[in-house]
C-alpha cells in the first residue's frame, strides 16, 4: 500500500478507501469475534469452576472441525446438523477425560494441571492423525453471499454468527434461570458456600468440565462454517493462544465475559490490521498479533478480572 502522505485529492481518496476498509474489516471482525468468543466460553467455564486452564483447548476445537468435515463429506449434510452431534461427542469426551484424569488433579498445582491438559491435547491430535491422516482437508458448502458494499459475507458466516449468539444466549439463560446452572455459578463464586448450601460440588465439577468441552467441540463446527479449509490434526494450537487472550479480556472465570471478549478481540484484530498496514516496512498481521498480546498483558496487570466483568 502506498504511503498516505501524498497530495490532497489522493489523501481524500485514500481516506475513503481506508474508511471503507476499516468498516468492512470491523464488520468481519465482529462476526469472526462471536465465533471466537463462543469457542472460548468452554475455556472460561472450566477455569471458573475447576480453576484449571485447559491448555489442550485447541485440540477440542479441532475435534469439532473434523465432525463438521466428516458430516459434510460422508453424509452430505450441512454442518448445522453436525452441531448437536459435536456437542454430544464433546460431552462424552469431557466426561471421559474428567473421570480418567482431571478428577485426580483437582487440588494439584498448576504444574500438573497445565501439563496434563496439554498432554490430553497432544493425545487427541495424535489419535486424530492416526485415524484421519495429516492431510489438510476442507469442505465446500456452497451458499450465497450478501454484498454489503463495504464487504461481502457468505451466508455460512452469518449462520455461524447467529449460531454463536443463539448458543451463548441459551447458555446465559441456562446459567441464570435453571437450578443446575445456578449451582454451577455458585461453585464458581464460592465453593465452600455452595457446598454448605447443599450443592453437590463433585458432580458439578464433572458436569462443568463436560459442558465446557462440549461447548468447545461445538464451536469447532461453527468455526468451520467460517473457515472450512485447512482442517488438520495440528490446527488447534493457534486457537488456544487466541482463546487465552480472549478469556483474559473477558475475565478468565466468566463464560459470557469470554463471549464479549471474543467480539472485542475480533474488532481489535481486524481493525488494527488496517492501521498497521499504513506503516511502511512492517508486517501488519504480525503486529496485530503482537498488539493483542500487549492488550493481554495490560489487562492482566491492570484488571485481571477482565474488562467486562463487574468488579
Amino acid at each position, binding site marked *: 500500500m502506498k504511503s498516505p502522505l501524498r497530495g490532497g485529492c489522493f489523501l481524500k481518496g485514500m481516506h475513503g478507501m481506508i474508511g471503507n476498509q476499516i468498516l468492512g474489516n470491523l464488520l468481519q471482525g465482529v462476526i469472526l469475534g462471536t465465533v471466537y468468543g463462543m469457542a472460548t466460553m468452554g475455556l472460561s467455564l472450566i477455569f471458573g469452576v475447576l480453576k484449571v486452564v485447559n491448555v489442550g483447548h485447541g485440540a477440542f476445537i479441532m475435534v469439532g472441525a473434523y465432525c463438521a468435515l466428516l458430516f459434510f463429506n460422508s453424509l452430505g449434510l450441512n454442518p448445522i446438523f453436525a452441531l448437536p452431534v459435536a456437542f454430544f461427542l464433546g460431552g462424552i469426551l469431557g466426561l471421559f477425560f474428567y473421570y480418567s484424569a482431571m478428577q485426580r488433579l483437582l487440588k494439584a498445582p498448576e504444574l500438573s494441571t497445565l501439563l496434563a491438559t496439554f498432554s490430553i491435547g497432544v493425545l487427541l491430535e495424535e489419535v486424530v492423525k492416526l485415524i484421519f491422516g495429516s492431510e489438510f482437508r476442507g469442505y465446500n458448502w456452497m451458499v450465497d453471499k450478501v454484498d454489503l458494499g463495504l464487504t461481502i459475507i457468505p451466508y455460512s458466516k452469518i449462520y455461524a454468527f447467529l449460531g454463536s449468539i443463539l448458543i451463548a444466549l441459551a447458555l446465559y439463560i441456562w446459567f441464570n434461570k435453571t437450578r443446575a446452572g445456578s449451582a454451577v455459578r455458585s461453585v464458581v463464586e464460592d465453593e465452600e458456600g455452595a457446598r454448605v448450601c447443599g450443592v453437590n460440588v463433585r458432580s458439578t465439577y464433572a458436569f462443568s468440565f463436560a459442558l465446557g468441552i462440549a461447548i468447545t467441540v461445538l464451536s469447532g463446527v461453527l468455526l468451520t462454517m467460517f473457515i472450512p479449509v485447512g482442517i488438520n490434526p495440528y490446527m488447534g494450537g*493457534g486457537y488456544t493462544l487466541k482463546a487465552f487472550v480472549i478469556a483474559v479480556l473477558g475475565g478468565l472465570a466468566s463464560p459470557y465475559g469470554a463471549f464479549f471478549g471474543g467480539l472485542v478481540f475480533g474488532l481489535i484484530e481486524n481493525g488494527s490490521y488496517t492501521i498497521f498496514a499504513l506503516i511502511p516496512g512492517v508486517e501488519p498481521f504480525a503486529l496485530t498479533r503482537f498488539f493483542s498480546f500487549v492488550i493481554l498483558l495490560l489487562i492482566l496487570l491492570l484488571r485481571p478480572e477482565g474488562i467486562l466483568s463487574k468488579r
Partner: protein
Amino acid sequence: MKRANLLMVGVLALFLILGSVSISYAISKIVIGHPACLSGKYAKAGEQAIGGIKACINWVNDVYGGVKLNGKKVPLEYKYYDCESKKEVVTSLTGRLITVDRVNVVFAPYSSGLTLRGAPIAESHKMLYMDHGGANDKIFAQGFRYVVQTIGPASRYHEGTLDMIHKIDPSAKRVALAYEDSEFAKRVMEGAEKHAKALGFKIVFKRTYPKGVTDLTPLLSALKATRPDFILGGGHFEDGQLFTRQMADLDINVKALSLIASATLPAFYEALTVLAEGVMGPSHWEYGVKYSKAEAQKLGLPWIGPSQDEFVSLFKKAVGKDMIPDYHAAEAGAQVLAYIMAVERANSVDLDKVRAELGKLKFMSFYGGWDIDDTGLQVGHSMVDVQWQGGKRIIVWPEEAQTGKLYYPMPTFKEKAQGKKAIP
C-alpha cells in the same frame, strides 16, 4: 632356508595386505540414511518423500539390478527415523545415522530449516548430504562443501508463471504479491518481484501474512482495493487453501491466481472443490510431465530411472495405499537416482569422488533435468506450472512440458459456484 622362510613370510604378508585391501573394497550394500519427518508439521511431505525414496530404491534393486560398483551389482538399503520435524532430534538422528548405522549418504529432512540443522554434522563427519526439501538459496551461500540440492531453489518458483502470463496476455500488467512470512516464501517473493519488474509488470500490492494465520480477510480486502490483474502468493499448505477460500468469500476475481506449495496438491481440490478450478501453482513435478527417455535423447542427456508410470506404481506399492505421489515424492526419488549415477561414475562410495561426480553430473529422469552449480545449488531442473481443470491437474507451462492448454482468464468465483469448469 632362512631366505626361503623370509620369502614365504613376504608372500604371505603380501597376500594379507592385498586381501585386506580387497576386503575393504568389497562393499556388500550401500545405505541411504534419512532423518525423516514422519510426524509433526512436515508429516505429509515426509510421508511422500519416504514413499518416493523407497520406490526408487526398489527400482534400483529390482529393475536396474543394483548399483554397479567395482564390477559387482550392490543393492541399496534405506535406513530412516522420525525426526518429528524438530531440530534437536535431527542432529541426534543424523549423528546416529552417520556414526552408528554408518550410512553412505544422508538425505536431509524436509524444509530448509531442518536441512540447515543437519548440515554442519554431515560436513564435520565428511558425509554427503543431499537436500531434496530445502529450497532456500541461502543454504548454498554458507560454504558447505558436501551439501547437494535436488529441489529447485526458491527464488525461481514463480519465474515461469510470470513468463507465461507475459507471453499470453501482455495487457495484464498489475500483479499482487501475497506470500507467507517465512524464509522460504520470502525468497520466492523476492525472486518473483525481481523477475516481474524485469518483465515490466507493475506490483500493485505486496504483503506477507504470518505462518498459521487463521483469517486473511483484512489482507484480502486491501488487496481487492488495488484491483490486480493476477495474484502470486502462497507459503505452505494450509494457507493456500485459506487464501483461495477467503478470496471466494470476498468475491475477489482475477485473471490468474498462482499459489506455491499447496495449490498443486490433491488436498487442495478436495477441500475447495469447484472453487479451485483454474487456480494454478508452480510445481517441481506433476504426474503427466513429458520427461521420458526420448526427450532426454533429444536434449543429449543421459536417462536413468523408472518411467513416470513405473514410478507411480512403485510408489503406491511402497506406501501401501492408492495414493498419487506428489512432487515431494518425486524429488526425493530423483535424489536416489542422482546419487547412484554419481557412485557408478566414480566407481566408489568415497565422499570426495562421489561429490566431484555429482558436480559434473547432468542427467534427466522422470523428475526432469538435474544439474548443480559449484555451490551445490540445483540449476538444471525447471519448474512447471500446473492448473486445475475439471478437477484434474494439467501442466500448462512451459510449452515443452504441456499436457493441455492454459485456461485464461480464470472463471469468476460466482461462475465456479455455478459449476463452470476451467476446461479450455
